[in-house]
């Protein structure tokens, strides 16, 4: 599903990733860990094409990231759900509208959008908050809205960048449980985190990013 072959990425003269290769299979749930500045976010950005590799090849669900046209990027992103640490929710839109936006761009009709958004709100247990605006939600609730928005269009890949960064342990556990549920339905999930408690004892593959490359691979 995701393949990196000898990928190098640098910003000006600062090399962030060097000669990195990795392979994430379809339906796999992988943790990406490493110290701050190790390149976790850059690696995720390369997957959703916010950045392009300087050297090497990246393929995501058969799209070649190095060669993909600007006009095709939106269609790649519709297959990649993204959960941001800073949520990126639109504060002037309700929870319902925030999630619906991900479906509107698919040009679905209003009825279908309503049904699918309500269904995903039930899954993340936020049905009561549908008409609430994001600033009136707790951090955990906001993160669940972001996850709902990322999963509502049923992407093939779900990326999460420090999804529990600002959350307490209980909330973090409930968020990870949500990711497991999503993965159980066949979605490939990549979670970038520096919190080893999140992957400890999960039995999932953990990629340790350090010194511009994957230094170690283990089972959590």
């Amino acid at each position, binding site marked *: 599903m995701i393949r990196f072959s000898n990928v190098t990425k640098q910003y000006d003269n600062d090399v962030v990733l060097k000669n990195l290769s990795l392979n994430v299979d379809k339906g796999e749930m992988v943790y990406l860990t490493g110290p701050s500045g190790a390149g976790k976010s850059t690696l995720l950005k390369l997957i*959703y*094409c*916010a950045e392009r590799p300087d050297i090497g090849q990246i393929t995501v669900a058969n799209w070649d990231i190095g060669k993909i046209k*600007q*006009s095709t*990027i*939106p*269609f*790649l*992103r*519709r*297959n*990649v759900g*993204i959960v941001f640490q800073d949520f*990126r*929710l*639109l504060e*002037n839109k309700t929870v319902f509208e925030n999630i619906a*936006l*991900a479906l*509107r*761009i698919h*040009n*679905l*009709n*209003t009825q279908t959008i309503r049904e699918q958004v309500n269904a995903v709100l039930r899954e993340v247990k936020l049905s009561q908050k549908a008409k609430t605006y994001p600033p009136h939600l707790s951090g955990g609730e906001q993160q669940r809205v972001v996850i709902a*928005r990322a999963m509502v*269009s049923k992407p093939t890949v779900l990326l999460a960048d420090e999804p529990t960064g600002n959350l307490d342990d209980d909330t973090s556990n409930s968020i990870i449980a949500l990711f497991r549920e999503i993965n159980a339905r066949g979605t490939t999930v990549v979670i970038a985190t520096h919190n080893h408690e999140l992957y400890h004892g999960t039995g999932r593959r953990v990629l340790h990013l350090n010194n511009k490359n994957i230094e170690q691979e283990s089972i959590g």
Partner: protein
Amino acid sequence: MNIVRYSLKTALKSIWQEKWINFLTILSISIAMSVIGIFAILIMNIDSAVQHWTRNFGVVVYLYDEITEEEKLKLKERFDSDEDISEVSFTSREDALQDVRRALGGNAVIMDDFNVNPLPSSFSLTLRGDLLKPDIVMEKAQIINAFKGVEDVQYGEKWLMALHEFSRALKTGALAVCAAIFIATTFITYNTIKIFFYRRKDEIETMKLLGTTRSYIRLPFLIEGFVIGFFGGLLSSGTIFALHSFLTSGAASFMPAIDSYLSVMPVAIYILIPAAGALMSVMGSLIAVGKIRY
């Protein structure tokens, strides 16, 4: 279909939310468009004014003293049958002398010093209004000059040239002002839409990450630009209509001369101005939204 509905909804919502900025933009566009409209009226009316000023413009054909009656008659027939000539009148040598005496009034005695009448007989020709352009009149004069019995052809070439130079300069100036205002109007919308674009920058960034296409992001801004430009133009049409009505009814009642210079205002201009406003604004919006990069 949903993209159009979404874009319309977003654009109208933004117009309402930012009503004061939009109102001021519409007002600015309407002022600019009104100036364009006034210059358009000016350009349209220059020709009618020039025709008005030159309607009595004549070409005088002086004849040789030795010309026979038969040749004179032949010339008259030629002038009468010429479609370019709307009026022909003949002045005999005697009539010309009388005219000069009348013009000289008390000083007419100086004409007594002449033993013989020095004035030639002549034809006065009035050319069709649409032919009163320096090069056409000159060509016509040259043709007539070659007719048998014609000694000289005179017309107010300097005056005609000056009038046409003046009209051309006025038209060029008006077009230049229109072009400058056209750019300014585009720039007004560009600025407004750029502000809205920056205000929604975070939202747009998020939409891009969700997989929104460029057209989906751009369309609401283009619709907003269209609405702003259209209403700016509409307001301007109203202003021009009021101004034209005032000039043709109000002003003309105490300045009758002005009425004869004002040509009928084509109705199309009231449609063209909002259309031009909308076009310029959409152009400004397009530049403001620019190339969206992923």
